[in-house]
């Protein structure tokens, strides 16, 4: 790690980590996106990373949480919550108390409610901006972070956001480092008391593992290998564009010119 000039205070980051679930076997594990979030945090210059988990601690979840410790952490802060509790107030409390500059989290949990709404509700609660689907945090300077957001088909969008902020990590972010057994075993889970708000609705819900819905096979009728290749490599139909109706030819031509300039065909 290169030495940082003393004028910059370490960047305080909190990564919200959850207990994941392996898609094939259903075993507890590091949640993939959360682990990518940890990796993202570790890659920043001079980070002070804190891991935060809100949930129940039992045999299965402990092994999964220790998976995060195995990425090179001494401790993980644990807000103990019974199963089915609404973790939002506890997390919001803990975050406003610790007041980190950056909160990193996955897009959605791999089990439980998994609605993907937590980052947005937290942001609303704390009054912070939220940026979703990050591939990279490029730079943090003077309280402003330059972020790279992942868009479909490998496209990227560069954004600037004033800290503190909440960001969520896309599957396009760098793969997490290996979790090592030694640090995972040595690290401590520091339980911190926090408010517990039980979710009444959850009680009445029936929970079952999500299953992938069957997908209709794409039947390609192609005469030649070239056609088959084209069909396989075809770009998905884009949802963008606009439909112009009832416009004058001049307006139509202007719209086309504008598009060509936007796309860089005309300069």
């Amino acid at each position, binding site marked *: 790690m290169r030495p940082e000039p003393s004028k910059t205070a370490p960047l305080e980051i909190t990564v919200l980590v959850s207990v994941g679930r*392996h898609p*094939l*076997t259903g*075993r507890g*594990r590091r949640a993939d996106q959360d682990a990518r979030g940890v990796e993202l945090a570790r890659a920043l210059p001079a980070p002070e990373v804190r891991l935060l988990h809100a949930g129940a601690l039992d045999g299965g979840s402990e092994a999964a949480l220790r998976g995060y410790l*195995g*990425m*090179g952490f001494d401790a993980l802060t644990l807000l103990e919550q019974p199963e089915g509790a609404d973790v939002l107030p506890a997390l919001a409390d803990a975050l406003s108390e610790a007041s980190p500059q950056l909160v990193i989290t996955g897009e959605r949990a791999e089990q439980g409610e998994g609605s993907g709404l937590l980052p947005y509700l937290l942001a609303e609660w704390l009054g912070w901006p939220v940026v979703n689907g990050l591939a990279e945090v490029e730079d943090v300077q003077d309280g402003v972070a330059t972020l790279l957001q992942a868009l479909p088909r490998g496209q990227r969008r560069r954004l600037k956001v004033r800290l503190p902020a909440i960001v969520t990590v896309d599957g396009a972010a760098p793969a997490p*480092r*290996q*979790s*090592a*057994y*030694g*640090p995972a*075993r*040595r690290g401590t889970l520091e339980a911190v008391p926090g408010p517990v708000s039980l979710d009444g609705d959850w009680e009445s819900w029936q929970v079952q593992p999500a299953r992938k819905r069957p997908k209709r096979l794409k039947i390609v009728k192609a005469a030649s290998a070239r056609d088959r290749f084209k069909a396989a490599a075809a770009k998905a139909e884009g949802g963008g564009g606009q439909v112009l109706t009832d416009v004058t030819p001049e307006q139509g031509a202007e719209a086309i010119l504008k598009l060509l300039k936007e796309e860089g065909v005309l300069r």
Partner: protein
Amino acid sequence: MLDTLLPILIFAALAVAVIGAGRRVRLWRQGRPARVALLQGLAAMPRRYLVDLHHVVGRDKVMSNTHVATAGGFVAAAVLMILVHGLGLAEGVLGWLLLAASGCMFVGSLFVARRRRNPPARLSRGPWMRLPKSLMAFSLGVFAVTLPSVGLLPEGFLEGSGGWLLALVLAAVVTWGLGEMVFGMTWGGPMKHAFAGALHLAFHRRPERFGGGRSTGLKALDLDDPEAPLGVEKPADFTWNQLLGFDACVQCGRCEAMCPAFAAGQPLNPKKLIQDMVVGMAGGSDAAYAGSPYPGKPVGEHQGSPHGPIVARDGKALVDAETLWSCTTCRACVEECPMMIEHVDAIVDMRRFLTLEHGNTPNKGAEVLDNLIATDNPGGFDPGARMHWAADLELPLMADRGAAEVLLWLGDGAYDMRNQRTLRALVKVLRAAGVDFAVLGNEERDSGDVARRLGDEATFQSLAKRNIATLARYRFARIVTCDPHSFHVLGNEYGELGGDYEVRHHSTYIAELFEAGRLHFKPWKGGGVTYHDPCYLGRYNGEYEAPRNVLKALGIEVAEMERSGFRSRCCGGGGGAPITDIPGERRIPDMRMNDVRETGAELVAVGCPQCTAMLEGVVDGGAEVRDIAELVADALAEAPQATGGGATQTQRPQAVEVV
């Protein structure tokens, strides 16, 4: 004058040697404690040296005889010299014996000198090049100073001015010899191998290897003790007898000549690795090393200390991580080492630290380990899909049967389409022989072989303990598997964790079935066949004969490759090497298929899913790769009619073989 000078010289050299020995012992004792039967080991040492070690050295007859003459001559000459010149007991037969011993040593040293005139690349140079001269100095010097003692030269020969000069010259020569042979032995000269080697044999970490035994299973880490270190970070983390073993290295380079990774230009040389451990144990840089370097890594850029890291997290330390990850754990170096040093143990010890503490298993290593943790197989396949390949075979499940004579262990090859063909063939053979067998089905997990060789002892033990618990629920006489890696782990490594089983490789079991008359084969009609010994079947488990017997029973005459049997060259598929995939100049399986091509065989018989995958992956391999089970399944014939008897049977090749 010599009468007064010689005792002084001799006892001074001995005293300095004793001080050196003390210093050397202190170096070894930096290591962790190890439980060794000290007295028993010392008592067994002469036998281990004269029988077991010379069994290995004897593979090269010329060098073996050279060593017997030189070392035998030296030991005898040294003892007699102390008696004759040190204590002045020249009367009678002792002096003559000393003449004979030093003469014998001199003859040996002539052969050592011949060896050193144009030494092969595997031999280290540097101080080793002066060794034949030192041997000659000692033997000639002792011979010459003994001549007057036995009366072959007149007592007054060395008096007078000319005699004085001669005496001085002789004293100088003897001093040189004593310096190399006695002082150098404990102060780090080439003769160190004799001192450290003798003690290494006495305190070997695998005493079972001596007396014709075999000990190849890796030793388990204690994971229950949170204070116990996870693998080896620094040289002092080795056990003291491992450090002693490294110090015993005679730098003959036989390991280097056999190492598949070295031959492939990957950055590993077993000899250099052991020397690096010696450098680390004593502290310093590897600049003085005078043998072949790790391919692509110049000598002199690495250094270490007993309590410094062996592999740095970033930058350079004693050894680079890719050196450790190049090893295929084929054990060719261990098999070849005349000092019986345990290279593979050391490499896995260091890998354990890299994986368990650094979390730094290269390339696909981390992914494979994650898969093993989450899905119990390295490919990350659905554990519920393990038996899909056998959907139409109606294999009896242990869960339904509870007991069977044979438990057929499928291994992770059950997910591999190539190995599924082997498995189907094996099932066909077992059914043809009417074997009462059953499989674990989806209850089976990876044996833990890959996890363990990648250094992830925690995942290995987790898999092993769950497998042992599953196996404990069923009754069976033996386990049969077509995967030598599972065979080795189940048979040799589960025992330490509480699982003792009788395990057979399918070739062994098929050979037994054939001998019992339960299998009958059609005569072989194909072309030339050669056989590739899997490391984990041959060197790890000593099974060289059964596969060849099966091939013979099929009527196949095996055209042996130059490197076969205990010297078989690895396919490159062991030890997680295809997963860590360290680049080299060549690929190991390509070299092996070249070996196959040299025999002119059209088909290479194998007995291991890894070997099959590696050898079949060779572009333009030339020879077809088939598992022994497939060859047997293809040759299955109905049992001959009992009344058809003798006349027809004698024409069948299998009838000839039943003796």
